[in-house]
């Protein structure tokens, strides 16, 4: 939803911040659409990449920060490789996502956020990822207990399930890395 009270002037400050962090010039975008034509994920986006760039050009930053696109970009960087004026489009989208996150705009695609958090919590707990508990935790938290259940017989039959979690020796050192980012004993939120 566009906030109509928002002026292009206010948007300009956020656009400048995106440019500063990503090191890209939004105005350089030609609107040729090549990023969109190479994007494998665009079918799931609300704004295809070139339209997202255009929204930034005209200062409609709230649309960008709240977009599905910012959350769903796979960061495969194909658009950045193909851009004729060498804009790192994926870097711009990733920066918008980070700013949205900092601004607390977390209503779009909460499950992806939850997955990343669960993944990192899992790593903080064991030092390595334990896929089994991540899957169980995620399905319990989202209430979709049958998610990927169809894979279970296959995974068990093919001995791809690790029952017991790994654990590294110097877990304290790994947790200090988490503290460096979060300033507490482990990942919050």
């Amino acid at each position: 939803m566009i906030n109509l009270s928002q002026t292009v002037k206010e948007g300009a400050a956020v656009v400048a911040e995106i440019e500063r962090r990503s090191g890209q010039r939004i105005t350089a975008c030609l609107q040729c659409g090549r990023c969109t034509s190479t994007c494998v994920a665009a079918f799931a986006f609300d704004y295809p990449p070139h339209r997202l760039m255009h929204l930034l050009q005209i200062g409609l930053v709230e649309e960008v920060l709240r977009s599905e696109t910012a959350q769903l970009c796979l960061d495969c960087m194909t658009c950045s490789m193909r851009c004729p004026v060498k804009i790192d489009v994926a870097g711009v989208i990733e920066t918008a996502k980070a700013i949205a996150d900092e601004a607390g705009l977390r209503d779009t695609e909460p499950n992806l956020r939850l997955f990343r958090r669960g993944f990192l919590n899992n790593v903080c707990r064991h030092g390595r990822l334990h896929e089994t508990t991540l899957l169980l935790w995620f399905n319990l938290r989202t209430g979709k207990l049958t998610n990927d259940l169809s894979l279970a017989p296959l995974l068990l039959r093919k001995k791809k399930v690790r029952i017991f979690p790994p654990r590294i020796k110097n877990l304290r050192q790994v947790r200090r890395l988490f503290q460096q980012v979060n300033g507490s004993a482990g990942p919050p939120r």
Partner: protein
Amino acid sequence: MTAYSYFPGCSLTSSAAEYDVSFRLVANAFGIGLDELTDWNCCGASPAPHHWGGELGILLPARNLHIAGAGHPSVVAPCAGCYNRLKYAQFELERNPELRERTGAALGEAVRYQTEVLNVIQLLNREIAPGDLSERVQRRLSGLSLGTYYGCVLVRPPEVVRYDDPNNPVKMEPLLNATGAATPHFPFKTECCGSYMGLAKKEMVLQASKRIIEVALECGIDALVTVCPLCHQNLELRQGQINAAYGTDYHLPVLYFTQVIGLALGHLPAELGIDQHATTDFGRWMLDAG
């Protein structure tokens, strides 16, 4: 015998154990020593660089670089994701003294980050000449068409990984051709498989991976070859889900690069963990193999 530090990463100790097994067999066959890093941790994979400002995406792999710094001159990370994260950490630590400082503070000593980081293709190309492999082949893979699937993070971003051509990578081909296999034109070598969205946004993975399989079959490819456990999971393990979602009937094998070389060296599919894959429908070429 040349020895390398070895960073297996989480996948190779669990859902992609067959990648570890086949890599060790191939390394052993060519006298390549592998010393597993002591007490390594998760590299952070895709979630770390995309969460909490992204800095864990540097700090977690930095600890592994630091451990590698006390070992051999080079460290090999067969998982494309781990390889990318190690290269990224190195890239950022190199140019950001302040980050180096903070990383060192968390580790408890000055961070060692300059160990050479190799991916599995790079290591095997360095240690095995195609001619040598060709002479050692016990099971010639003639008549087999392999689709070399490199994925995203092995070759992108090019200024960080500095490996192969980011749009048309070709470094897997010489060793594969030395096994007798053909590597026909496959335009989807670096198309994204859907990344880590499998649990939280499955339809993205299924659609992205379906396109890759579809194009591979149109190109007459018998099996895809990958170096990435996440790509393998999306393209191989989830093939049944793709079939269920789209009404297709795909049974396209997806093999790790090291498994193909292992097969050519005469190892049985089971020794290389190929029986652990969902799709073991190898048709004609596996039947007359060995």
